[in-house]
């Protein structure tokens, strides 16, 4: 069963057709990278997969279930953003458990999931800090922790390393790759960096002007 299945996806903004008929199948455990220049529609595609935007046509299936009309929180996905998007007024701990809080996961299960993820990403000493007190790499790890703790079917990465300096980028690339190998997650990763794509992906989809 494919983890993600996209058929004939179209997206129009007014008169501009941003996505022109996308077909894509991703198997469970694959690390798929969407590469392409700015403006080719890859971020839009990611937003539609996440459910943050609705397609103008076509269908999306996640884990065999049609999710065109399903809200983002019910799609069993997690997303890591280029700007990390950590909640500034909450501690790292609260940032990571916020999603579980919204879903009313019992306290004990929350603590357990938090401990597991904190250990995996080595962010245990940071749990009581605010995002403004963290470095770029630490923030990125917390953002990944927030995604990991949901244990989703699909991980979506939206150019997560673009804000980091070159050395940190290389380190984080390896970390993400190792994470993938360890937990066999299904990942859809968007970037404009071809090297990043080639070092990390098991499959690459090149996008140009709204088509793959």
């Amino acid at each position, binding site marked *: 069963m494919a983890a993600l299945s996209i058929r004939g996806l179209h997206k129009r903004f007014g008169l501009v057709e941003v996505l022109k008929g996308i077909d894509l199948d991703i198997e469970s455990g694959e690390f798929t990278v969407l590469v392409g220049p700015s403006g080719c529609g890859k971020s839009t595609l990611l*937003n539609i997969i996440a459910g*943050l935007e609705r397609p103008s046509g076509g269908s999306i299936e996640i884990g065999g279930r049609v999710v065109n009309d399903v809200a*983002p*929180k019910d799609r069993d996905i997690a*997303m890591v953003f280029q700007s990390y*998007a950590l909640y*500034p*007024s909450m501690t790292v701990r609260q940032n990571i458990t*916020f999603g579980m809080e*919204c879903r009313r996961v019992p306290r004990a299960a929350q603590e357990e999931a938090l401990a597991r993820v904190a250990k995996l990403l080595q962010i245990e000493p940071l749990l009581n800090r605010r995002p403004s007190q963290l470095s770029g790499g630490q923030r990125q790890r917390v953002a990944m922790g927030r995604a990991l703790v949901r244990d989703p079917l699909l991980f979506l990465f939206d150019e997560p390393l673009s804000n980091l300096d070159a050395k940190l980028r290389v380190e984080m690339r390896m970390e993400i790759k190792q994470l993938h190998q360890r937990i066999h997650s299904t990942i859809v990763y968007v970037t404009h960096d071809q090297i990043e794509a080639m070092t990390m992906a098991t499959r690459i989809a090149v996008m140009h002007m709204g088509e793959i």
Partner: protein
Amino acid sequence: MRDIRPSWGRRLIALLLVGFAAAYMVPLAIVVLNSVRSVEDIIQTSTIGWPRALVLSNFTEAWGHYCIAEVCTGIRPYLWNSLAITVPGTLMSTLLGAVAGYAISLWRFRGDAWIFGLVTLGVFLPEQMKLLPWAIVLRDVGLSNTLTGLVMIHTIQGLSFSTLFCRNYYVAIPQDLIKAARIDGAGFFRTFWRIVLPLSPPILIVTVIWQFTGIYNEFLYGVTFTNGTQQPITAALISLTANVANVPQYGVQSAAVLIAAAPTLLVYLLGGRWFVRGLTAGAVK
């Protein structure tokens, strides 16, 4: 070697500023002086002058005993009226404006620009223009000559300002934050309560100070839509000065004016610093 003495241009500006400050301060100084002078003192000398002897009875008289339109309770009940109008009006218009500004800036929906334009239009409409419509509305809902009616008017009108302020502040919050919250499962109100509101103190302080000062100082609606014991202090002060006694009671009137000005002065003294900071603060670093 630079000449460290200020240039003539700077001196001129300083002189102008001192001149303007004096123009503002002189009436205040006269009122303050008159409030501590007895009636005989003012009548016999002139309305402008140093007190012969310091007299504090004007304040007690104004607060609790002076007669306004045959009701001899002083201005105390009217001060409470004003506060009873201003505090709920400020709180409600600020909160509603914050939610409205949040909705318009961070949740795109069809027609949001139009709605924002319409709400903001209220900022520019003159009070006098809305007098008659409000009179009709108050009559229809049965709230004429009540404090509740004035609270309603000020809340709704305050919405224009607070929505404008809050929306301009909230546009600085990155959309990614809202996206992350949606994926986490937070809805409209939870996102507001847990994520956006904690980022809001600067603009909330600005809005509260602005609204408090505006609603408290408001005169036209107060004097038009209420009378007698329901009046806010701005309207009551006029009735107070209309009180015909044997002798014009400038001392008591001055004391009454100072008491009436106290709340907004206090707000300025305590919060003025935050006002400027809040206007220039950004939402997220």
